[in-house]
């Protein structure tokens, strides 16, 4: 005679354990991503120095990232400068200090807004396209096909894109600066009635060449970071169309976050 004893139900891990696991996996993923991006950076630097240089690919990417973003960056810069001048002049009128509108807009644009907004525009317009394109090539095994043909995919696909991000973001930052200051001038002088001489002389008095260089350096760092992250996410995408979409989303979020974090770090280091 045998007695059947009911078996105990299998219980999953507790909520506490799941939470700890989630945090741990997130941390591991974060560190792995940083390591992967750094490793990719080393590869890109190494393959940038090797022949063939593939200038045609490079110019195509420079055109796509830089020339293709001129309109959106200039438009963003123009309206940013205009609205910033309008709001700051309204505030400065309270203190009878409208002469400080020009310097305020100039310093804010050159140091912060121009590199950050330019990099964000490039992330949205070019970074997403880079990630999606590389991700699609990865899941459709085109990257494997390149390796089969003894073409290094890092040199062929990634190096031009990352170089384009590195070189074009500072150029677009300068374009943003120019459009922004033009918009600020129009609003301050034509709309708000601030003297043109005051606007120009006070801006010149307060602005320093180092402010412009700070923006350029930040632009280069942001461009490199955005291109690296987007290429890394796309290059390592997996899981078909859904995986490509997920990789693009992660690339956008990570790129935007990296811009703001790097902006803080570089800003602190440069002052």
């Amino acid at each position, binding site marked *: 005679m045998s007695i059947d004893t009911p078996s105990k139900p299998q219980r999953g891990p507790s909520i506490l354990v799941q939470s700890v696991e989630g945090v741990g996996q997130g941390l591991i993923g974060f560190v792995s991503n940083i390591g992967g991006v750094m490793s990719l950076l080393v590869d890109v630097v190494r393959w940038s120095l090797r022949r063939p240089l593939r200038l045609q690919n490079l110019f195509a990417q420079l*055109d796509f990232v830089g020339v293709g973003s001129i309109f959106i960056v200039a438009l963003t810069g123009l309206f940013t400068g205009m609205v910033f001048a309008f709001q700051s002049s309204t505030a400065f009128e309270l*203190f009878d*200090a409208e002469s400080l509108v020009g310097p305020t807009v100039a310093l804010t644009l050159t140091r912060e807004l121009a590199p950050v907004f330019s990099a964000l525009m490039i992330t949205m317009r070019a970074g997403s396209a880079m990630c999606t394109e590389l991700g699609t090539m990865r899941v459709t095994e085109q990257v494997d096909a390149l390796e089969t043909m003894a073409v290094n995919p890092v040199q062929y696909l990634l190096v031009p894109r990352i170089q384009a991000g590195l070189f074009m973001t500072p*150029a677009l930052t*300068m374009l943003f600066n120019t459009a922004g200051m033009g918009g600020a001038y129009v609003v301050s002088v034509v709309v708000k009635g601030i003297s043109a001489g005051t606007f120009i002389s006070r801006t*010149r008095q307060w602005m320093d060449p180092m402010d*412009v*260089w700070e923006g*350029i350096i930040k632009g280069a760092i942001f461009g490199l970071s955005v291109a690296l992250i987007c290429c890394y996410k796309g290059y390592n995408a997996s899981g078909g169309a859904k995986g490509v979409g997920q990789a693009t989303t992660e690339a956008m979020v990570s790129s935007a976050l990296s811009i703001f974090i790097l902006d803080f770090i570089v800003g602190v280091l440069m002052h």
Partner: protein
Amino acid sequence: MKKLVTPFRVGLLVIAAGAFLVTFILFARKGGLSDRESTKVWAYFKDASGLSPKSRVQIAGIPVGEISDISLEGTRAKVWLKIRQGVDLRQDAAITKRSESLLGDFLLDLNPGTEQSPPLENGGQIRRVIDTQGVEAVFESLTQITSDIQQVTGALRQVLGGEKGTGSLERIVENLVRVSDSMDATVRRNADRLDTILANFEGVSSDVRNITRSNQAEVGRIVDNVELITRDVREVLATVKNIVGSGEGEFKDSVASLKQTLNKLDSTLGNLDEITRKVKNGEGTAGMLLTDEQLGQKFSEAVSDVSEFATRLTQLQTEVGLQSTYLVSQGRSKNSLSLRIIPKPDKYYLLEIIDDPRGKVETQVVQTNPPSDGDPVIQTQKVTKETFKVSLQFAKRYYFTTLRFGLIESTGGVGADVHLFDDALTLKMDAFNFAADELRYPRLRATLRAQAFDHLFVVAGMDDILNAQQRDSATQRLIAGRDFFFGGGLFFTDDDLKSIITATGVPSVR
């Protein structure tokens, strides 16, 4: 060809960005002053806050150099300046730190010194450092005024504040409400009787007035008698008071005096009886007024005029203001206390007492007689005195413009104000001091006044626009010539004062 299109477009972008970069760098580069083209001098400052390397150094508003370095020496800041070679610096040069705006934009104003003093060598020290702090000085004055007002309101709050004071006020209000209710009811109940009483009272008052007019001599006697009576009554009261502590003798005297007084009062009543009889018979002006309808109508009109005058007086508005401005070239503050009496919205009288650091310039003729024979030597000297100045102006407003004339800073002058943005911004122009010998042109002053908050305003402008600067040779004080100024002030209307009293109560003697 198509292969070239992409590099060409990229190249164009790079060239454009490079051109923008170069333009920005050239625009932002100040050029600076090299050691070869500048003189390095230094000065000690007690407070160098707001100053930094590359801060401007200017003479008469024109940049002539910059701060090259700031270091701490003991408890003082040693500030090194690079001054352009062409500037003739002397050993009595003076330097002033001042702020350019309310937001603390600092620069240094340099006075290069006088020709009589030896030149200041490269690496020398500017010994005259004037520690005026511009906006801080203005704010300090305003803070002091605010503190005084707070002390007053605090004292009032202490007197009638708290639960006890609030309870008293509540009881007073409740009593007033009850009194007004009962008064209203009484008036309603006795409306007809009150009308009759008022008519009688009006008649009596008219009679008395006419009596005083037509029988002045008799009234004079009555008044004399009444005066005597009151004096006697006062003496009686004093005597009665003394009785408590003294004997009866004085009391008897007082009773005798009282008898005498009563006799006089009897006589006075007799006079009054005679006067009323005359009035009743229509004799004199009083009698005429009672019988002459035309005269009564004129009297009614006169009362109406008096009533209108009283109404005007109650509509009169007053405004008390304090203003403090910092005179940039003078390096000192100018303060004024103003009283504006506003009988009508479009008309006002302005009385100001002004403490002007320019002072008042007077010309004195000094005659020196030689001890021996010879003509006396006559010299003319100008003396600057520190005195308060007074303005008394009449102003009339037409639409957005106010015209003023009268006494401006103790001299005759005229002024005009243009009011913009619902009076939030006012452009004021004053012209005065037309006859001063030391001035080539009359003193013309332009002021922009902005209403910052309800009772706070800021001003900025230029004084004595037309004349070149003149300084007192002894004190280096600016006595004439153009000078920028900025500052602020407070003003209160009588409505504000009423609000303060209503909120805090009126102090009472316990």
